[in-house]
């Protein structure tokens, strides 16, 4: 123990002496070390500024552009009956599924928006109306140049709208002016409501300028949407840059959104007879599904072909037919209460067949021609849905609530999927789960490209540092060869000789890096000062409030710092090792 302690003490004393010598040598060769130090400091400065700028661009892309365009994960529902509409009919149910399945959710943005044209005073422009819910952070986070955010939903003759300043200028309107915005409802009906401009936001970039903000409930009504309907759900997570995790969670969500069979607890009426029955629709346009239906339905009267030929056709179980006193050819009224609204949904149907009870369906069950559901169910989801187990033999023959589209791996695949959707003739609803990585893999690739450029810059600078350090070391060793010989002659060990040179370089690297970091802060502050007014320039999206945007990250700075010091150490170590191995006699004989 004593020997160990003595050994430690001796080492500490040795390190102190070596450090003193190293530091003195730094000062002794001031000019040369200053130049090397400046080189390392500038390199460190460039690394910090570049990394901070790249981080800033990433932050803009992920947290200021993508998050509003698509969120980190997005759920959409496409439906087509007589027209395409992107409407999620049962938003609360989807939100419940998302909350159960996806962890780390910061928030779920319910999309209620419309694209149209704004008409001001003699001028028109493009306009993307965005509905903002009353409890959104938008109201306290948005700095207005004029007006008040809460005036959006203040009772007035016209509802309030908040515009970006440049957009308002383009259509010749200002605060308290009236703007007409023309768009279509989700059903394709024309709308041209008037709004009063209650606020102006300072313009940031030409992409954001198109957005105009209104109260979400107001916009929902104008779009003729029901309270539970939305145009999509944008999920904002707290791990947007973790591509693998985002995609993994999206895949889980995709599996969790597997649809049930589209079913309604409907009231059937035939004359004065009434009966409630679980009502489903058969997929008669799918040969496989038709075959399953044929195999599992035992017809007492009528057949599947008759059902397929009549868009208002329906098949009843024997029990239901008996309760209604209905036979094939009978006209019935089928009605159900929608989830939203008070008016019941009614449809006249014609009995095309009677079948025996089908397990595990209720005794009173009806199976309709899919057209009956296309004209009713997909516009109005029922307050009381009918359900059946997934393992029921007839399940695959039933029209589902929606078809779940396959996940896409990148933007190209996502684009092809949407193109194919546009080219097929289909009816009903399709649900898609997307992440920002496939929605805008071009933007993500751009971010990766920036990181690559940043990495190349790092490597180039390290190379520069390497050259500088090697050169300085070699010159220093050459000049102090006799000194090395003298030190060795009076008892300095090889290790100590090596340590002197290594510590010189390490001290220099550490000091220079610290100076470089401070310099970087100054440079970023200076670069962030000028205002860039890039009104119609796409690069404006890379500025925040018209200023360059830097996000320095401690981890990155520390990593660069450690790397530079480590590189300097290694170079110094191997160069100094050679010097330390010199023979004393050779070192003493050395002349410049």
């Amino acid at each position, binding site marked *: 123990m004593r020997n160990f302690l003595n050994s430690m003490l001796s080492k500490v004393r040795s390190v102190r002496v070596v450090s003193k010598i190293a530091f003195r040598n730094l000062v002794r060769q001031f000019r040369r070390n200053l130049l090397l130090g400046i080189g390392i400091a500038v390199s460190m400065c460039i690394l910090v500024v570049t990394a901070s700028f790249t981080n800033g661009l990433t932050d803009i892309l992920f947290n200021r552009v993508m998050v509003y365009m698509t969120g980190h994960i997005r759920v959409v529902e496409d439906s*087509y*009956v*007589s*027209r*395409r509409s992107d409407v999620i009919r049962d938003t609360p149910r989807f939100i419940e599924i998302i909350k159960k399945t996806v962890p780390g959710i910061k928030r779920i943005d319910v999309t209620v928006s419309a694209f149209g*044209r704004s*008409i001001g005073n003699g001028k*028109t422009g493009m306009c993307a109306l965005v509905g903002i819910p009353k409890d959104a952070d938008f109201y306290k986070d948005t700095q207005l140049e004029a007006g008040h955010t809460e005036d959006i939903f203040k009772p007035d003759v016209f509802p309030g709208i908040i515009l970006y300043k440049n957009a308002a200028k383009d259509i010749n309107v200002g605060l308290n002016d009236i703007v*007409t915005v*023309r768009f*279509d*409802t989700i*059903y*394709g*009906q*024309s*709308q*041209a*409501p*008037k709004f009063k401009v209650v606020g102006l936001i300072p313009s940031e970039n030409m992409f954001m300028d198109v957005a105009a903000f209104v109260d979400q409930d107001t916009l929902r009504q*104008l779009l*003729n949407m029901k309270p539970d309907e939305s145009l999509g759900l944008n999920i904002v997570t707290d791990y947007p840059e973790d591509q693998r995790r985002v995609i993994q969670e999206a895949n889980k969500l995709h599996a969790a959104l597997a649809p049930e069979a589209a079913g309604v607890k409907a009231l059937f009426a035939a004359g004065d007879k009434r009966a409630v029955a679980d009502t489903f629709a058969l997929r008669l346009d799918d040969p496989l599904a038709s075959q399953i239906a044929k195999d599992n339905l035992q017809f007492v009267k009528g057949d599947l072909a008759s059902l397929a030929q009549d868009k208002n056709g329906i098949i009843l179980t024997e029990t239901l037919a008996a309760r209604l006193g209905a036979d094939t050819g009978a006209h019935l009224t089928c009605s159900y209460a929608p989830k939203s609204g008070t008016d019941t949904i009614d449809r006249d149907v014609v009995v095309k067949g009677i079948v025996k009870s089908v397990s595990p369906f209720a005794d009173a069950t009806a199976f309709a021609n899919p057209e009956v559901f296309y004209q009713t169910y997909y*516009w109005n989801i029922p307050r009381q849905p009918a359900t059946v187990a997934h393992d029921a033999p007839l399940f695959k023959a039933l029209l589902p609530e929606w078809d779940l589209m396959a996940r896409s791996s990148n933007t190209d695949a996502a684009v092809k999927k949407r*193109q194919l*959707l*546009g*080219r*097929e*003739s*289909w*009816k009903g609803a399709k649900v898609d789960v997307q992440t920002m990585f496939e929605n805008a893999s071009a933007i993500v690739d751009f971010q990766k490209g920036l990181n690559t450029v940043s990495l190349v810059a790092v490597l180039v600078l390290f190379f520069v540092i390497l050259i500088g350090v090697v050169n300085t070391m070699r010159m220093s060793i050459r000049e102090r060869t006799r000194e090395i010989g003298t030190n060795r002659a009076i008892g300095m060990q090889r290790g100590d000789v090596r340590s002197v040179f290594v510590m010189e370089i390490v001290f220099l690297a550490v000091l220079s890096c610290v100076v470089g970091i401070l310099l970087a802060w100054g440079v970023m502050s200076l670069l962030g000062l000028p205002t860039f007014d890039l009104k119609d320039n796409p690069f404006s999206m890379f500025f925040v409030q018209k200023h360059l945007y830097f996000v320095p990250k401690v981890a990155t700075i520390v990593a660069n710092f450690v790397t530079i010091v480590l590189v300097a150490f290694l170079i110094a170590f191997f160069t100094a090792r050679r010097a330390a191995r010199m023979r004393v006699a050779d070192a003493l004989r050395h002349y410049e």
Partner: protein
Amino acid sequence: MGMRKLMLVTGLLGLAAALWANPSVSEIIDQVDTHMQLRSDMTAQARITTRDPEQGTKVIDSVYYRRDSDDAFLIVIASPESDRGNGYMRVGDNLWMYKRATRTFTHIGRDEKIGGSNASAGDMETRKFKDLYKASLDATGKEIISEETIGGAKIPVYRVEVTAKVNDVKYPKLVMWVTRDKYLELKRECYSLSGTLMETDLYTSYKDVDGRYVPLLMKFTDEVEKGHTSVLEITGINFSKVDDYKFDKSYLESLSK
């Protein structure tokens, strides 16, 4: 005798009142449907001239085919060169848009605009008014209908107001001016869901073609963005049978070759 005379006069007066009473809105739109119903295949040339204060004038020439049996239609654009070969087709329940440049068909809705004009694909369908609209009622529950005259020639017309029965129509409210003698629509004001006047349409130069009345000139005026107008001129109307192959996608594709 006096009593009989009184009853006769009362009866005659009642008959006269019935004869002179306005038809109901439903009867009028029924008549409009009847007169507009083609009841046969049809081929015609159509020219749409669109004027936009910012973008200037654009003229689209097209050929229109209609098959009566299933109300299928095909529009093939002949000019300008940039749109030539593009088409719009409805067969069954499906509406398609064809782009010659990409040789692709896209499934569209009724609201898809034709060549950027005010005319939409849904306008080309012959959906019956009575299936889409019903009479609007005033505060007292009466149908909104009045007798007026229109234009310099003071043509006697009925002015009727109708409201959409279904959701998927472009204009939920219409005010129509229909001639009293032949129930031909001369003017239409189209209102948005929020009650804003969006468009005024004029239908003129009706031609009796084999007992059917076809407006040869239609003008659509945008009332929201002033200065935007579209004029649709119909020429070369022919009611002979249209070959079935024209309502196949391959026909449109063959025109692109």
